[in-house]
């Protein structure tokens, strides 16, 4: 019974409260602002963390994979389509890495030659990468710089004497 009395008194006190409607509105406003800001913060945090994880994850995974590529230029054979043409270079590339790679391009002294040849682990290019020079020739005893690039961005540069 005492509990019931105490509750009745309390309700009576509250009913006689001096707080006006503006206080309630202010509280409500603050509540709305806090909830909104916190929601925005939450959404921003989720999206930022997700974006970071996506970008960093892609970077780490792609770099990890690319780092396992090891192209090795085993041989460069300088020849020509005729006796004295000196316009063909055959390049042999071995995969000494731990994953297959695809050769995208070969540069000879900064001249681009495009290819699309996949080399499995431990293997050599099934057909040599044949660079047919146009408008230029290689010269005996000159140093030729040959760069091989894969689709993942791995490059290896070697020098050969023609």
């Amino acid at each position, binding site marked *: 019974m*005492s*509990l019931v009395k*105490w509750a009745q008194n309390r309700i009576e006190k509250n009913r006689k409260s001096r707080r006006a409607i503006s206080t309630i509105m202010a509280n409500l406003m603050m*509540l709305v602002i*806090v909830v909104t800001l*916190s929601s925005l*913060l*939450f959404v921003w*945090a*989720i999206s930022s*963390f997700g974006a*970071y*994880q996506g970008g*960093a*994850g892609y970077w*780490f*995974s792609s*770099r*990890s994979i690319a*780092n*396992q590529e*090891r192209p*090795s230029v*085993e*041989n460069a*054979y300088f*020849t*020509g389509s005729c006796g004295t043409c000196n316009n*063909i270079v*055959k390049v*042999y590339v*071995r995969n*000494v*890495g*731990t994953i297959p790679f695809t050769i995208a391009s070969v540069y000879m002294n900064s001249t681009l030659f495009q290819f699309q040849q996949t080399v499995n682990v*431990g293997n*050599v290019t099934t057909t*040599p990468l044949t660079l047919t020079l146009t408008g230029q020739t290689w010269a005996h005893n000159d140093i030729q710089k040959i760069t091989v690039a894969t689709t993942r961005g791995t490059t290896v540069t070697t020098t050969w004497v023609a």
Partner: protein
Amino acid sequence: MGGINQMRIYRRFVRAKKGISTIFGGLFFIILILMGFNLVIWGFIQYDNYNSTLFKMNQNDQLSASENLVPFNPGAQNFTSYSFNIPVNNLGGTTVSIGRIYITNVSPTGGTRCTNSDPNSQGPCIVDSSGTQNCAGNGNCYFTNGNIAAGEINHLIHVTGLRIDDGSGYKVILSSTRGRLFSFFYPWPVTPTNNGNGQGTFVTNIGPLSIYFDFKSFNFTQGFQTQSQSAFCMPSGITSVLWVKLANTATDSGVTLLGNTMMELQPYSANGFGQFVRTWIVSPTSINPGSITAYNSNNAPYNLPAAGPNGPAGFTIVYFGGNGQGGTGGVNLNNVDNWLTFIGFYYVYRGQPQGETIPFMDIRTTAGYPPPAGTCP
């Protein structure tokens, strides 16, 4: 008593300053912190995976760098019909596995094997362990015994399907499975000795000239060879250029060779002067029969500079391959025989012409060139 306790709990609850928003705020903050931790841990894991990949590949690179395979003289040996051995020493710190052997003919002589003109190889001869190319028309070329343990010396890599002792000059590249290349030239190049020191053991000194006759200094080339071989044993019936190494030991004047300088060779087993083979000096750029040009003592002479106080300024290699004075064509020793050889040097010394003859040098020609080591049958 029970009612009083309930009332205390209610009062505490109703008078508590912390509202529900505080609890939610706390939870919210904790969630954010946990998300941050999660992100950091995820980053660590990713970075650790990346590092482990780097570490693994670095180990491979270190193993690759510790390979040190050394082919040694004569480069290729034990020739049979279609096979030979490549002797190597593994002086590195790890086992070396040969993945492929590239053999390129860089100075074709009497044949086009392992060149672009060869219909079999259409480029360099490729020798795999499994045999993927019929590189010389004798069936697929392959090699065995391609794994060389660390510290192993005189290891023989057996190559089957071709031979490279036909007189051409070959560049041989041994490619390891880790991507390292080890190469040598066959026939094994000779190394000049004495650096022009005129007091060496195998030197004849006549007048101001020192003429070297050790087996690394008196050489020949055939075809388009750029690396010479000892001329004390030569192939018969092959057009060649002979190399003789000279130094000027006079300190008071240089020596200019004249076009009369020549060599005369007589086979031991033949009678009559008609059997002589004679050849004259050719230009200083005539290193092989494919590049012979006539000698002109005015335009491009052999000038041997005067010696200094410490000896000759250096040696000069003189090429013989003219079929007459000022001629070209090379020298051809058709007979299989020993050849009694004279060299007549005619030159200008201190502004005056002068001549000397080097007598009684002996060389031999053979039809079975190159001969087994230590012989000239």
